[in-house]
């Protein structure tokens, strides 16, 4: 996994990787090399201890347990091994394919809005000579709200009968929309709300990256007589590619596990299951519909894990290739 992160930024380490970097400094005591090494390792692991315990209890152990539970079923307090029954069950469920389709659609929409829009906003803000601080604060304001406040506020705006959005459309003599109530627009509505809530973070990161671009590059492009779009395409984007590609990966992984927004806005499934995502399906198997299907939920989680891992591997390979170009 570390490989997927590396294109982001490779700070050259000041010391060669591997052991011995600390030993060099204490060269005078080479004689007690072994004891020294043991002591150094003990203290190093001592520093790691707290984090290791927490990872162990709350992430690694549950991962193992997840895999085990995928092949088990618990009914009336008795746990039995059921082989691949749980996997069969999810592949038989029409909701499974439906949920994947929705998840990809959601991810696609979220990329257009949640990934491209903050970049566009960042580029725009970076060009402005005035009111920059004010605008930057504005974009970040929603991030500071408790999500429940932002989401319930949007739910209120989306109400087809008395919501603000339809009222604005009516005032402008435009056709109104059913927003969250229609299978055609529910997903887009969720993405719009999510983007409003979350775009501040990405925008600030892009802004920081943009400010790191050496001005000479633009000057050189000006001398070549490059237009605005060419400069954007040939200077801005390549110069921020590392941060763009890291955020793209994080964004995809994050949107594929989106939960709170659809859960609060449409109750999860949405009209005709139009906002049902894979993570919501996991939740539904495990906690909703009176299922208690931890086994099935775990199996679906496992499938999702494999898909995400495959995606990350593919992604890191692609970005490594393009690095080598």
């Amino acid at each position, binding site marked *: *996994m*570390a490989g997927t992160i590396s294109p982001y930024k490779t*700070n050259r380490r*000041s010391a060669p990787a*591997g052991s011995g*970097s*600390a030993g060099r*400094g*204490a060269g005078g005591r080479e004689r007690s090399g072994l004891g020294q090494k043991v002591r*150094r390792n003990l*203290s*190093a692991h*001592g*520093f*790691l201890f*707290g*984090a290791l315990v*927490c*990872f162990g*209890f709350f992430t*690694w152990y549950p*991962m193992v*347990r*997840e895999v085990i539970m995928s092949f088990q079923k618990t009914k009336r307090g008795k746990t039995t091994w059921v082989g691949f029954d749980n996997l069969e069950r999810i592949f038989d469920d029409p909701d499974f394919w439906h949920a994947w389709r929705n998840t990809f659609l959601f991810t696609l929409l979220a990329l257009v809005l949640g990934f491209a829009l903050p970049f566009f906003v960042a580029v725009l803000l970076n060009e402005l000579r005035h009111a920059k601080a*004010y605008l*930057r*604060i*504005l*974009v970040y*304001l929603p991030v*500071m709200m*408790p*999500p*429940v406040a932002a989401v319930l506020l949007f739910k*209120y*705006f989306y109400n087809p009968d*008395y919501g*603000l959005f339809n*009222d604005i459309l009516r005032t402008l003599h435009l056709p109104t929309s059913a927003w969250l109530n229609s299978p055609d627009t529910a997903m887009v509505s969720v993405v719009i709300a999510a983007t*409003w809530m979350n775009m501040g*973070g990405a925008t600030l*990161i892009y802004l920081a990256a943009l*400010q790191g671009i050496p*001005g000479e590059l*633009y*000057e050189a492009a000006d001398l070549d007589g490059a237009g*605005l779009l060419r400069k954007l395409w040939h200077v801005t984007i390549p110069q*921020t590619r*590392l*941060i763009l590609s890291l955020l793209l990966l994080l964004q995809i992984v994050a949107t594929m*596990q989106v*939960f*709170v927004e659809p859960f609060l806005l449409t109750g999860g499934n949405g009209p005709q299951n139009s906002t049902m995502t894979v*993570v919501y399906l996991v939740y539904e198997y*495990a906690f909703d519909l009176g299922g208690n299907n931890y086994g099935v939920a775990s199996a679906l*989680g*496992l499938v*999702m894990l494999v898909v*995400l*891992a495959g995606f990350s591997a593919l992604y890191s390979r692609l970005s490594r290739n393009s690095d080598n170009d």
Partner: protein
Amino acid sequence: MAAKEPQMRTIVPQTQLNRPLGKAVYWTVLTVVVVVFTLVFIGPLYWLVTGGLKSTQEVIQSPPTLFPSEIHWGTYATAWRELKIGRLLFNTVYYAFGALAFQLVFDVAAAYSLSKLRPVLGNVILGMMLATLMIPSAVLIVPQYLTVLDLPLLHLNLISTPWAIWLPTVANAFNIFLLKRFFDSIPQDLLAAAAIDGASPLRTLRSIVLPMSKPILGVVSIFAVVNVWKDFLWPMLVQPNPADQTLNIGIRSLATGVPQNVIIAALAIASAPTILFFLVFQRSIMSGLTSGGLKG
């Protein structure tokens, strides 16, 4: 930072802006951007604050009113009292800062160890930590819940205790990764010199590494607090008692049987502390987020 900083060279060269046409276009764009951004980002907040001042019938009337026809301050008092927002707010702050403290201690120590002390199997451990970044948290929620219920080996039940929120947040690979990357950039020679002077690793961490790492510590702190602030499903499961709940959970569940205007007032109250905090400290938060080791 902000307006006073010298304008760097960007896509649009300054010379172009000095021409009359360039000037006109620039000021038009600027005006449009300022107006649109204000509407998009302040507009909803305005609606939130004024919605809380309307009567129940007025908030669900169509078409909506821009100003409350009659100001109902009492709605805010009702929301504060009946939804026990003070309690929820306290809980959220308590969980958020507890989580922050644990992360600052354990994650900084771990990142320091992985970056500078380089124990045996350090890279394997880092890899295993980073691997968890790819795992959707919702996927692990079932086994995690069962684990918190009965901690393996120790057989402790953490449900309804703050530990159930604090400790899992330490397992935050992203923060460890950020910290480690920053520590990596601190020259090894500095630490080697300290080691020759006989400084212990802890002392080196305290007196050399941490003072140099303020920007990244700021970023990690913001992330730590924001994560708890925004979390939803996990606190809902591990804090079943309404008296222990966070803002997100408490407001959502109490909202089911409460008039719409009271809900809106509650949302406005709940949003106020963080927004005010942000406005007061925006300068340092902004500079932390934009320069603190996040950029390329």
